């Protein structure tokens, strides 16, 4: 009985060990909107992201309110009127690195990766596919990718007076440095 118990415990522990994950709580996501009238940039450096090194599953969460803008009033308008941060405080991404088995997460190897998944902003979920680069920097998984989103795809309404100042397509950059959990 005792032996069985120890065996079971070891089995459970080994299960835990196998689930190798890399994580960060201060990933950086920034976005850019460029129009002839005005360029706008916002940065969020409190993004949580996790990568399952077994199957290439990846997930990220951020608080919309944590985006910081150069102009305080823009930040207020962004949260109050555009993305409605009180109603939809978070944006999430859930996906998977394509052809993950080929990527060995080897130290120093920089890999082109394709991530497919679903992105939720403003309560709207859309499937996206992004290209990025991944490399193992002395045990830290460094993942960078860039993509674009259409403001209209996420039911974000831009009121008339500022329509000229905000681009319809927003460029998004992400950079995660994930440590072994």
């Amino acid at each position: 009985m005792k032996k069985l118990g120890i065996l079971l415990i070891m089995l459970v522990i080994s299960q835990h060990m196998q689930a190798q994950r890399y994580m960060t709580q201060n990933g950086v996501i920034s976005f850019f909107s460029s129009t002839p009238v005005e360029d706008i940039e916002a940065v969020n450096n409190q993004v949580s992201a996790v990568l399952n090194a077994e199957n290439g599953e990846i997930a990220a969460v951020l608080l919309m309110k944590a985006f910081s803008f150069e102009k305080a009033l823009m930040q207020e308008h962004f949260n109050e009127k555009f993305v409605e941060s009180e109603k939809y405080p978070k944006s999430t991404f859930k996906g998977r690195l394509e052809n993950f088995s080929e990527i060995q997460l080897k130290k120093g190897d920089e890999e082109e990766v394709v991530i497919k998944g679903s992105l939720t902003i403003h309560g709207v979920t859309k499937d996206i596919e992004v290209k990025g680069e991944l490399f193992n920097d002395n045990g830290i998984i460094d993942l960078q990718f860039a993509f674009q989103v259409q403001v209209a795809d996420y039911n974000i309404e831009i009121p008339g007076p500022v329509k000229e100042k905000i681009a319809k397509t927003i460029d998004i950059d992400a950079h995660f440095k994930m440590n072994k959990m």
Partner: protein
Amino acid sequence: MNMNKLTKFKLICWLFITVGGYAQDDLLDMLEENQKPTTNFTFATFKNTRLVSGHSIETNAKGVLQFMIQHRFGTVNSGWRDLWGLDNSTIRIGLEYGITDNLNVGLARSSFLKTYDAMVKWRFLRQKSGAENFPFTATVVSSIYLNTTEWSDPERENFFSSRLSYHSALLLARKFNDKFSLQLMPTIVHNNLVEDTIDQNTVFSMGVGTSVKLTGSVRLNFEYYYLLPDQIFSRDTTNALSIGFDIETGGHVFQLHLSNSRGMNALRLINNTNGTWENGDIFFGFNISRVFNIVKRKQVKN
């Protein structure tokens, strides 16, 4: 033996639950669990630093300069010859600056009594939820006023201090939800010189204001200042009741309103209102506010 079997069974169940649980474990759920609790500061309780004519709890952020032009026209019932009041305008021009997000200073001049005013405004408590909770935002605002009109009686001995007046208000506001905010503003006005000795130098009033969000860029505001009785005897006074719209266009806020008061500062708003809505002593007015970012905020990147 029976006991043993049962224990074994329990252990195996537990194993399946645990392992099964981990296998199903969603990465997103895991991230949510790991997230540090954050404090949400309530923002945009009101659109502007003014509700209608009086202050709101809002302050300009650090490094932001607000330029404000305010106009109040004559009474709507003054007839066609004065184009229903438009001929008869008073103006206040002012600047306010955010030294920090919570501390603002300002300077302004009103055409009424050729008055200059200097203001300091401090938001010392903020409504917040999440990791930390607090139910309302509190701001204090104090102004000193300098009346630069000629002495009404140059023959008598006039003191410089007689030109000065003061006002202080405690502003308490709560944003109940995305649509509705309420503000209370107990206010004291002190005039060093009053019209008649029977008048109080220090006058107490209680203000109440609300703001209703109609669309993302338009709000409807009410503002009412109740002057406590038995303070001013030399003239008739009424309580200022104003209704206004905020229309926001990026860095500008246009506030259009109707009021029985022409006051654009507390001195006139509280102590010198004598119009009544019933008699049509209604003044049209507007505030135009524009903000300039003098100091750019730092954006930290990794």
